[in-house]
């Protein structure tokens, strides 16, 4: 029951205000904003202000001393220029995009396949689907450290399993060629449950008659999926993918815990780069760190706004 109520989309809720008469609106407005006051103050103090501070950081030349005293000189876009000119910029951008898109592609494909599979209601379906949520609910530090040990070069279970089929051990986390692949594998594992659950509820929303009609027309399972299910699932798929993009772009914990962005920056993304600039060195570079962070916000907002547009079109 909770489920049906929850999945109604809130962005459209205030739009339904037409039912109220305009005369009753005035006093209602005051009371409403009294209820909203905490969240508005909260947003200003703990979202807008930190973001403003971050923007300010990115436009000034900070040293540790001026960071504490707050008298750093304004330096315009110098930090951004430095970041763009940095040798790490190209690789970090490439890694961010690779990490995001490869993760999403696999999470979505595997999640969709599993959703279709679990949608054929068999006995254990509900229980096993619930178990699939475990990786998504575990604290990231738990998943990251477990994968680190599984991918250990000498004693990891993954290399042992590869050895059984005659593959030489791979230096998953310590070789620049494999570090990015390793964090992508772990991230795919974490993201499958989200895709599975959302796509599964999307499948449930497709009326059973559609499938029956296609079956009567003699369509095979394969045809039915590509010609009936998949097109009907397109809006939900778009939303799953866009939300996935927003969430994957900002992944930091997993990469930092598994590889710290290394070795030799081989798995550095914007998120880990920004953190390393601001917090990872003895001499923090808050300005460039904030600049990288703001670039990351721009990327996230781009996909975020696309998501909201889609969401709106789906629930006018």
């Amino acid at each position, binding site marked *: 029951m909770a489920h049906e109520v929850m999945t109604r989309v809130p962005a459209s*809720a205030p739009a339904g205000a037409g039912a109220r008469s305009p005369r009753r609106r005035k006093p209602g407005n005051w009371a*409403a904003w009294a*209820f*909203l006051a905490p969240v508005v103050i909260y947003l200003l103090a703990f979202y807008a202000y930190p973001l403003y501070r971050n923007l300010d950081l990115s436009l000034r030349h900070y040293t540790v001393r001026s960071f504490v005293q707050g008298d750093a000189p304004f330096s315009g876009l110098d930090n951004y220029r430095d970041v763009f000119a940095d040798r790490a910029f190209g690789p970090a951008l490439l890694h961010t995009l690779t990490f995001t898109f490869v993760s999403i592609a696999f999470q979505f494909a595997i999640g969709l396949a599993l959703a279709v599979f679990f949608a054929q209601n068999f006995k254990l379906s509900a229980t096993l689907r619930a178990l699939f949520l*475990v990786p998504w609910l575990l604290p990231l530090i738990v998943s990251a450290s477990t994968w680190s040990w599984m991918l250990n070069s000498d004693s990891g279970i993954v290399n042992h399993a590869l050895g059984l089929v005659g593959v030489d051990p791979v230096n998953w986390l310590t070789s620049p060629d494999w570090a990015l692949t390793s964090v992508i594998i772990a991230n795919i594992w974490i993201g499958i449950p989200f895709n599975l659950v959302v796509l599964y509820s999307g499948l449930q*929303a497709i009326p059973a008659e559609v499938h029956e009609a296609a079956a009567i027309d003699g369509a095979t399972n394969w045809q039915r999926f590509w010609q009936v299910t998949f097109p009907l699932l397109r809006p939900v798929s778009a939303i799953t993918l866009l939300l996935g993009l927003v969430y994957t772009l900002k992944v930091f914990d997993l990469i930092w815990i598994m590889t710290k962005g290394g070795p030799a920056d081989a798995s550095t993304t914007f*998120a880990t780069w920004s953190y390393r600039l601001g917090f990872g060195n003895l001499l923090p570079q808050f300005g460039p760190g904030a600049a990288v*962070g703001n670039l990351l916000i721009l990327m996230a907002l781009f996909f975020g706004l696309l998501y909201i547009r889609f969401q709106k079109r789906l629930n006018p």
Partner: protein
Amino acid sequence: MTKQHAKGGLALIFTAIMLFPVYWMINVSFTKDTNMRSDPPHLFPFDGTLEGYRAVVDQQMPYLGTSLFIGLGTVLLTLAISAPAGYALAKLRPKGGGTLSFVLLIAQMIPGIIMAMGFYAIYLRLGVLNTIPGLILADSTIAVPFGVLIFTAFMSGIPDELINAALIDGASKWRTFLSVILPLSRNAIVTVSLFAFLWAWSDFVFATTLDGGGDAQPITLGIYQYIGNNNQQWNAIMATAVVASIPATLLLILAQRYVAAGVTAGAVKD
């Protein structure tokens, strides 16, 4: 019937593959130090040890306590801010409410690492770095937009007649909110609390940036320092990881339907 069994069997295999890392974490947590690097690896924890868990009891209890406290604090703060907001957006529908919902959706998308940097600059000036209230406040930013979203969605499902009846009886809007709306919103309260707790419990970004030098640190930092310091004691690291996973597991067992509701909220429409 046999086809049903085949599907069930296949599903079991998929689930086993998916959950293998979780099994491996548990297995390693019971493995003796001397067997840790043996070849072939010990696939089952026979001839196991409780050394890892002893290390958790000896060393990690304060971290777990801190995390529990931070989690509960985050839940209270999140509920206090998001429930009234949800009521206003769902039922009082003020001018500008749509814009506020939009801002909340956007707020959810801002990467935590960037929030952390802004918080760091502010906390340093205010002197609340490495304090528990500071961390609770930062952790709640993960959950508040989600909370408002859930409460708004849920409360718009409450019939207007119930609210009007209370208003006619002379109850104020605040009274109505407390004694009519909140009791009816139990499901939403549970969902929001679960996720707020889980996110605060799992938080690493804010913990490492804002509480890295604190006296009271959460369990995520406990594990992180373990990995950094004694690389060899993987049974202790994995035992801590197992204990740190308990809240997530409990939630899944006790409140499965709320969890699924939270995952799909905002993503799908029936």
